């Protein structure tokens, strides 16, 4: 009976997920698509919780639905109201549909075949056997920050690269022109300290319970975005020096610890078991600060002072104006 209920729950969850994805991808209204995408992110968080992945549920709710939703909503603010329809010919649409269907069927066969084969050696055995010497007791944190620490270092580098691109490309987006609601400001005064405390809690508890640096950093970024939404006129000018330090401190600490361990143990990022817990906490704290500032800046955009381009597009516009004016003058004279 319990099994049957769980199966019904699973099937309904899967059907709902597929329906949400289909509507997101095939609706014609931009705002509806983004809203459904945020809802799909939250439903995905429930699916992660069902599949016994609580760290992922936290991360998906904060990053996938929260930060991603804020980014998308900010991007469609001035979007043209054209409906999103595909302009391909019927033939190409038919080809794409049939090829995708064939690929889906093929992949389903592959997964079904792969799941029916005998279980190979799973890395989880090694993870759990080495867990006591890894310095933490949450296996996901151990994998992220001890066994595969190099991957996390490169992930921080990827986030930094994306933020640098966002920061250098566009001018500051114009803020919300209307007046902000005092209700929002009042609630922000209560929420932001709560978010900061929760973020610190998630960072600390990541060692022995679901949590960790990414969830904590994204929650801090959400607090900063909330502040920006509630008090848009008080948007602080970037303190350039502090900004550069905050963005880089995660990778810097990571590499420093790695090099120190290399000098002791002959291997980059090989933690000595006695210090592993402390080192992981230090790295996680720096990573939290880095991720929080990176995600906030990815939302805010704009160029901090001193980071303008060579002014080439401003000069090009000037040249075009001068050229067109001289052409009309000469055309008028000749």
């Amino acid at each position: 009976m319990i099994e049957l209920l769980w199966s019904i729950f699973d099937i309904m969850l899967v059907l709902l997920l597929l329906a949400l994805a289909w509507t997101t991808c095939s609706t014609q209204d931009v705002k509806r698509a983004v809203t459904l995408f945020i809802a799909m992110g939250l439903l995905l968080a429930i699916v992660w919780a069902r599949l016994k992945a609580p760290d992922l549920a936290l991360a998906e709710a904060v990053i996938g639905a929260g930060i991603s939703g804020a980014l998308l909503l900010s991007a469609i603010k001035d979007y043209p109201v054209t409906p999103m329809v595909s302009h391909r010919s019927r033939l190409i649409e038919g080809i794409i549909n049939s090829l995708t269907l064939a690929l889906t069927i093929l992949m389903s066969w592959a997964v079904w075949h792969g799941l029916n084969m005998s279980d190979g050696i799973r890395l989880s055995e090694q993870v759990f056997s080495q867990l006591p010497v890894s310095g933490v007791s949450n296996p996901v944190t151990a994998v992220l920050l001890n066994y595969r620490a190099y991957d996390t270092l490169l992930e921080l580098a990827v986030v930094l690269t994306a933020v640098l691109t966002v920061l250098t490309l566009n001018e500051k987006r114009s803020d919300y022109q209307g007046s902000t609601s005092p209700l929002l400001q009042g609630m922000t005064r209560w929420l932001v300290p709560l978010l900061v405390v929760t973020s610190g809690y998630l960072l600390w508890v990541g060692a022995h319970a679901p949590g960790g640096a990414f969830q904590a950093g994204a929650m801090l970024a959400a607090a900063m975005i909330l502040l920006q939404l509630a008090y848009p006129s008080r948007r602080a000018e970037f303190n350039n020096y502090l900004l550069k330090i905050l963005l880089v401190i995660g990778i810097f600490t990571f590499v420093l610890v790695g090099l120190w361990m290399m000098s002791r143990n002959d291997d980059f990022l090989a933690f000595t078991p006695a210090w592993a817990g402390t080192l992981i906490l230090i790295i996680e704290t720096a990573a939290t600060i880095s991720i929080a500032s990176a995600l906030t800046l990815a939302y805010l955009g704009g160029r901090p002072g001193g980071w303008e381009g060579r002014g080439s597009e401003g000069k090009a516009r000037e040249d075009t104006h001068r050229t067109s004016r001289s052409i009309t003058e000469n055309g008028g004279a000749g």
Partner: protein
Amino acid sequence: MISEQLLYSLAGIGLFGIGLRATLLHHMLLPRLLALNVCGAGVFLIFIAIAYGGIDVMADPVPHALVLTGIVVAVSATAMALALGRRLETLNDE
């Protein structure tokens, strides 16, 4: 009945197919970006479905860590794609 691993893996493949079709069909940036994120969600679902052991058994933590990295990288890529799209619009307007 059907095992949870198989059910959620098929759901992940379905998500990937839906997202892939929408990516190929549209020509504007934003619907393609949303569809690519749906593709990514499908791939994550396949990972976590394979990592699921049972209701009483601890799940395999290695795919969890990979998907956590994937979620953060996906949101950074979305931010970068939106910035690039906005820049292209400004360049096209000039």
